[in-house]
């Protein structure tokens, strides 16, 4: 149509085109914005409301009761155990994953032969569902009673019998500190360690990939300059590479921590929360509250607490990222 009127200036034509493009862009975004508004934020708001309602049986009862369910949850021994397990699991998982990821990345980055093969091998577990990981590692970490099974059997076969342990059936804890105002004892449940091993096995490849991307982003000139200045490899790692990896490390921490906060499938298939709630995380308790106890309001309260924990972590990160981006621009 515009072509039919040669009188129009080209600049006006262009402006119109821009406007039309913008209109199309907005039109295309509207459905997804609507869908997200309803199916994500709408339901989050609904969950928040349900967590303060009296919907505690199979009968739908949305009368408002305030923060009762939150108060009850934090006063419950079982939920306190859940939170303790969550903290222990996250700390171990994060620390080991980062160390392993960095070590693998440094090794792969050392320009060894067949680098891409190693990279694929380390990344591969990430392609597997946590459910499969959980089932497979449960078999490995089932200790066996009269005769060893799984990993204990492997240890025995290669003459490392002294490494045999109770693994996922281990009921012992350490250091078992009593805190006067908590119903739960502060400790590391031994049974959570095999779960951390399985989670690290699955996710350290991801940490490696992130660190590898970070390493590749460090300009060769800087390393060159450091070498010319007589820097040893260790000094280079300590004073040049690690500081330059800081943004990547932060991203890895945020992603891994929110994976660990939301972990459900791995625990469900590997230990089911046992022995005696020692590996149970809030997500599992939430499932039981909703689908076994039919206590929807209480389950919604757990969901909200998890959401708050995750957003405490991700919102500052997103803000920081936005600022960093605008500074770059």
């Amino acid at each position, binding site marked *: 149509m515009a072509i039919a009127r040669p009188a129009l200036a080209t600049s006006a034509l262009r402006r119109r085109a821009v406007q039309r493009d913008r209109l199309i862009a907005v039109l295309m975004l509207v459905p997804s914005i609507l869908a997200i508004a309803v199916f994500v934020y709408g339901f989050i708001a609904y969950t928040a409301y349900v967590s303060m309602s009296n919907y505690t049986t199979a009968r739908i009862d949305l009368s408002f009761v305030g923060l009762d369910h939150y108060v009850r949850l934090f006063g419950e021994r079982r939920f306190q155990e859940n939170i303790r397990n969550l903290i222990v699991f996250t700390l171990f998982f994060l620390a080991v994953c980062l160390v392993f990821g960095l070590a693998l990345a440094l090794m792969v980055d050392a320009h060894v032969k067949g680098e891409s093969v190693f990279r694929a091998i380390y990344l591969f577990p990430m392609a597997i569902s946590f459910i499969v990981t959980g089932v497979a590692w*449960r078999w490995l*970490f089932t200790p*066996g*009673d009269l005769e060893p099974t799984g990993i204990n059997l492997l240890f025995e076969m290669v003459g490392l019998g002294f490494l045999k342990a*109770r693994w996922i059936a281990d009921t012992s804890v350490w250091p078992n500190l009593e805190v006067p105002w908590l119903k739960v004892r502060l400790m590391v449940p031994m049974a959570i360690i095999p779960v951390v091993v399985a989670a690290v096995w699955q996710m350290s490849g991801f940490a490696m990939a992130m660190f590898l991307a970070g390493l590749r982003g460090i300009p060769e000139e800087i390393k060159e300059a450091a070498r010319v200045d007589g820097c040893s490899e260790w000094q280079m790692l300590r004073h040049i590479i690690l500081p330059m990896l800081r943004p990547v490390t932060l991203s890895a921490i945020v992603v891994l921590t929110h994976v660990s906060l939301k972990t459900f499938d791995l625990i469900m298939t590997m230990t089911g929360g*046992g022995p005696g709630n020692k590996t149970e995380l809030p997500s599992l308790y939430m499932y039981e509250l909703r689908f076994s106890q*039919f206590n929807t309001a209480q389950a919604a309260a757990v969901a909200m607490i998890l959401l708050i924990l995750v957003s405490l972590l991700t919102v500052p990160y997103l803000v920081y990222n936005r600022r960093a981006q605008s500074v770059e621009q």
Partner: protein
Amino acid sequence: MKQERKLTRRQALKLFGAGAASAALAACAVPAAQPAQPQQPAQQQPQQPAQQPKRRLEIFSWWTNGGEADGLNAMYEVFLQKNPGVEIINATVAGGAGTNAKAVLQTRLAGGQPPDSWQVHAGRETLSYVNAGQVEPLTEFFTEKGFDKVMPQFLLNQLKINGEIWTVPVNIHRSNVLWYNPKVLEEAGIEPKFPTLDSLFAALDKLKAQGKVIPIAVGGKDKFEASHTFESILLAVFGVEDYIKLWDGTDTMWNDPRAAEALGQLKRLFSYANSDRSAQGWADAMTMVLEGKAAMTIMGDWAHGLGISKGAKVNQDYGWMPAPGSDAFMWLSDSFCLAKGAPNPNEARAWLEVCGSREGQDAFNPKKGSIPARTDPDLSKYDDYLKAAIADFASKPLVPSAAHGASTTNAYQAKFHNTLEVFSSDLDEKSALESLKEAVADNNR
């Protein structure tokens, strides 16, 4: 320039169209999901007048494999003989001993799309559905069909909630059974007769001292094994009448010193059990008995079904007796209810009639490995163990199982299981008793 812009616009339109189409599809999916089942018999269609809607029946259960699914299908066949032309929608959800199915059912009920009839443990487990007004009372239906005359009075009384019967039991399982390996006991010089807990512990002592096998195998992976073992001990310690009072929704009996005593006995029993019980399921425990790695285990009589499936013979490769301390019959039962607002109420009633009928129960139970909830089964269809169970069901005092919902609500059961799971690992009687008392109120909702 012109060319380029046209292309983008066309692409944009296409994309937008695709988006709109998929949104429309998603909107359609909700009503379409329920009926669409294309595998109806083609030759019957022309006979029916075009405007008459097809008769349907949707049955929801967690019977998805082995004898359970076979039994369900056998019952469907009986139903179809009596109600030809009805299309059965077999809505099953596998896994988790029903937990997954209950999760799906909950979302359907919350969304106002109930199946016509669903599987539920008979007894107090039905309470949450009754309170929520999701099921119809069936007391009149029972008298109408004469079920009240062919089911034991004990059972009918224990089925009642708020004075009404709400579900039709299709089978009976026995919870309090001790399974043992006769060869292992013989080699250890133990006669398989443990009428009391003391006689059981004497045998366990002997086995532990010899140290060749695990004296008693206990599971834990499926979450109900510890509570299952505990209910048999509660029955032994409290006796029939007081045992029943444990589940009346008050803490009277839990304040009785016998409650602590029962936990003490369970703790003692655990000291003879495998220490990796949190990693083993009930089926692993029974397999240990069948393979001679463990001497005995306490489990419901679905363990008999496992024995058969492993090619073992009852009274030969494995033996059974009532769990020590009481020879009462602790029952649990799978049953079907009638949904309030069922889409096909007539078909649903016809289905429940089959569920309660002699023909339906005799079709289902030999395959599932359980006994009918009626006192008049065709004995020739049942194996030796089931015949003995039928005789016991008719003659022994009946008590309801707590671990399997006959005397407990869903909410209470979950806490009961968890408390005993924790006890199995921590062996802390004081905190276990506290949690059990705390949970009591949940047996009323």
